[in-house]
């Protein structure tokens, strides 16, 4: 029952009607529907999420009242990260759905209590809903406990404005996933299934296509998740902010999978010392944090390499002080995206013998015709020229809050695009596997 199936939307309608029809027990309805959704979608593997809920809920309470907070927090971290590592890195184990996401969410809750930033939630029901909230449980975004629990204290109202914005986000997410990501996948997958038989031009185009596919797949899912939550009245921040217009590696991580990068900054980078312990220690902390980011995606060496690569880029950026003017900014976009897509090549190719060949083909482009260079140059020029207008225009909000006549036109175009533009064979979400 994933967001690219009709069942998801039938379920959404049922839950929305149930919430709109009741004043009391709304949290209970949401919790039951979230657990039912997880139970069905995860193929009945529900023990891991239940254990995380109970460990962090009671762990949070004990951390709050005890003087030996360090020990309690250590035990909670060990239990949750241990379970995550067991399922993620032990060969032969089935990875429970969404474990990477809800583990981080619940760890954030425990750490915030430890730091005194929040008090433990009294209601187990509300806390269980926070961890298992079905729009975000399978593939994020990683929401913060304070944000969610504060909103869950208010009566859930299904309002027309939230409904309009939610449906807008959902349709945009479906266009990104079904129309762009799935169609690009049919070009990308055969190339990376056997990359050695393709020349440089194909590898470069497939890498670019993969970068766009990944953004549309994950960004699309995030939009659907945020749209679903918005229908219920929960407002969460966007998880992506035009990452391919970033001017530097650091700017990229402020725009890509924002919830994860912020979580790593707040709960790993800063506790390690952040940038407060001198330049060398800062660089080490950056590399370690990004390696952890890579390992979060999976236990294979290419994710480790990808994380380390981004850590090194962030270190280099700190060393090189870039001028702040428009030309430097545009040049920065071009260079940053080149480096980011190089990183996606490492991310995508999981066979080390293939990676060396692919990297050489990416770094030394051949077989491009004059027409390719002309078309590519024009596209890059246009993107850079209109960068500001695209990057800083909150067009999703504009559509979601537009007049009904305009919104009707948008909805008609979006639905036709989704229907006619999506391939017959539906593919699963890429980030579902992390």
């Amino acid at each position, binding site marked *: 029952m994933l967001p690219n199936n009709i069942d998801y939307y039938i379920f959404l309608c049922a839950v929305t009607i149930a919430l709109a029809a009741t004043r009391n027990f709304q949290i209970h309805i949401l919790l039951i529907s979230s657990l039912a959704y997880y139970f069905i979608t995860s193929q009945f593997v529900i023990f891991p999420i239940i254990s995380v809920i109970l460990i962090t809920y009671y762990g949070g309470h004990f951390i709050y009242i005890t003087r030996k907070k360090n020990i309690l927090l250590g035990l909670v971290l060990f239990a949750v990260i241990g379970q995550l590592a067991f399922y993620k890195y032990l060969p032969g184990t089935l990875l429970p759905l969404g474990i990477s996401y809800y583990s981080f969410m619940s760890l954030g809750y425990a750490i915030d209590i430890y730091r005194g930033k929040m008090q433990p939630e009294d209601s187990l029901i509300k806390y269980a809903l926070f961890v298992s909230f079905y729009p975000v449980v399978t593939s994020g975004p990683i929401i913060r406990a304070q944000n969610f629990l504060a909103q869950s204290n208010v009566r859930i109202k299904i309002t*027309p404005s939230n*409904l*309009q914005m939610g449906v807008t986000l959902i349709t945009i997410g479906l266009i990104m996933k079904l129309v762009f990501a799935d169609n690009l996948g049919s070009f990308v997958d055969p190339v990376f299934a056997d990359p050695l038989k393709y020349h440089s031009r194909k590898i470069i185009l497939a890498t670019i296509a993969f970068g766009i596919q990944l953004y549309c797949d994950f960004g699309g899912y995030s939009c659907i998740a945020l749209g679903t939550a918005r229908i219920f009245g929960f407002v969460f921040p966007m998880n992506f902010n035009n990452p391919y217009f970033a001017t530097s590696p650091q700017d990229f991580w402020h725009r890509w999978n924002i919830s994860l990068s912020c979580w790593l900054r707040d709960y790993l980078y800063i506790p390690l010392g952040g940038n407060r312990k001198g330049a060398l220690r800062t660089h080490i902390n950056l590399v370690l944090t990004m390696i952890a980011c890579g390992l979060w995606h999976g236990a294979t060496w290419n994710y480790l390499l990808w994380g380390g690569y981004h850590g090194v880029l962030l270190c280099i950026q700190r060393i090189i002080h870039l001028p702040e003017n428009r030309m430097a900014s545009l040049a920065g976009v071009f260079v940053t995206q080149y480096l980011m897509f190089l990183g996606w090549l490492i991310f995508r190719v999981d066979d080390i013998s293939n990676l060396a060949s692919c990297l050489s083909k990416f770094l030394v482009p051949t077989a491009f015709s004059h027409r390719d260079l002309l078309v590519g140059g024009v596209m890059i020029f246009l993107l850079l020229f209109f960068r500001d207008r695209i990057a800083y225009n909150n067009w999703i909000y504009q559509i979601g809050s537009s*007049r*009904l006549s305009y919104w*009707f036109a948008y*909805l*008609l175009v979006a639905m036709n695009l989704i*229907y*006619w533009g999506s391939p017959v064979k539906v593919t699963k979400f890429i980030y579902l596997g992390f």
Partner: protein
Amino acid sequence: MDEKADFSDLIFIAVAAIIILYIIMLALTSAVIDPYLHATNRYVNYFDFYENNNKTNKIYFIGNSYTEYGVNASIIEHEINYSYNVYNLGVGGDTPKHRIVELDSIVRSRPAIVVMDMTYGSFRNDDQFNYPQLESRFGLVTDRIKLDSITKRLFNTTELNCIQKNNLSLLAYKRQYIIPGSRLALANLLLSLKITNIAFLGASMPREFKYKSYDFPNLVVSNKTAEQYSKNGHYKLNGEDNNNIKTFRHMVDVLVENGIYVIIINMPLNPKYSMWFTNETRENYHRIVTSSGCPYYDLEGLCVPMEFRDHGHSNVFGQQNITRKMIEILKMEMSNASKQH
């Protein structure tokens, strides 16, 4: 946002958008996609053929790619003085379990004779059925397929879902043809307006199902192909009934019950491939094909290696030999067939 908007406005908009989308779906499917499929899609053409061919005295050759390459229906027609209309309905990868989906349509089209060209691979145990292949062959014609209760039991749920889509699923399945369909529609429009004089692919001529076009006679036979096929274990028959065997028996029963004369032929194989089949497999195979009671001809050793492109697909010389033999068989059987018919 308009301050006066409320739930009723949003619901009205959503319902209106869905209705308009549905109208567009129906309109584009019937005006653009269906004509394209009828003009170009092979499997749609098979069912069009069954439904629209009103000729009498028809002979159908059904089988897999060995039949496609091996039988020249035009020459057969000529050699039997056009007393029958002969059609080569071979499909690559065909098995009884594929063909039985068309059985109702075959019976309704009332052929006089059906020549069932069998090979060892026809009875392979494919309970792990190839769903994409099944869907690509029958996915577009699910509204024209009728399965009897015996046939339905031979398929699992996933296979039945591929064969029997509901109308909405079929509509959604067809949408992938919107771009080529639009291209054809545009090309035909330009042609009709005499803007261009190039005839595009897909003019509305029905397929003739006479002969399969092929490239060149291949006189070099690869032993490796024969060995490879023999080692994969697909074509070992151990005497147990599988769904293909049950389907074959049911097909023959239905055809005969409907007054259709059935001839069963064991198609020629490349001797370099044929030698790999065990005696047990050969015995079990012959037991199956002869148990139907229909006239049976064993042509396995008819052709020499030089008449094949590979393990079983004939080249132009092989096709001549096989077609000549088919003519001989038909001349012997036509009088029996006319008595039955």
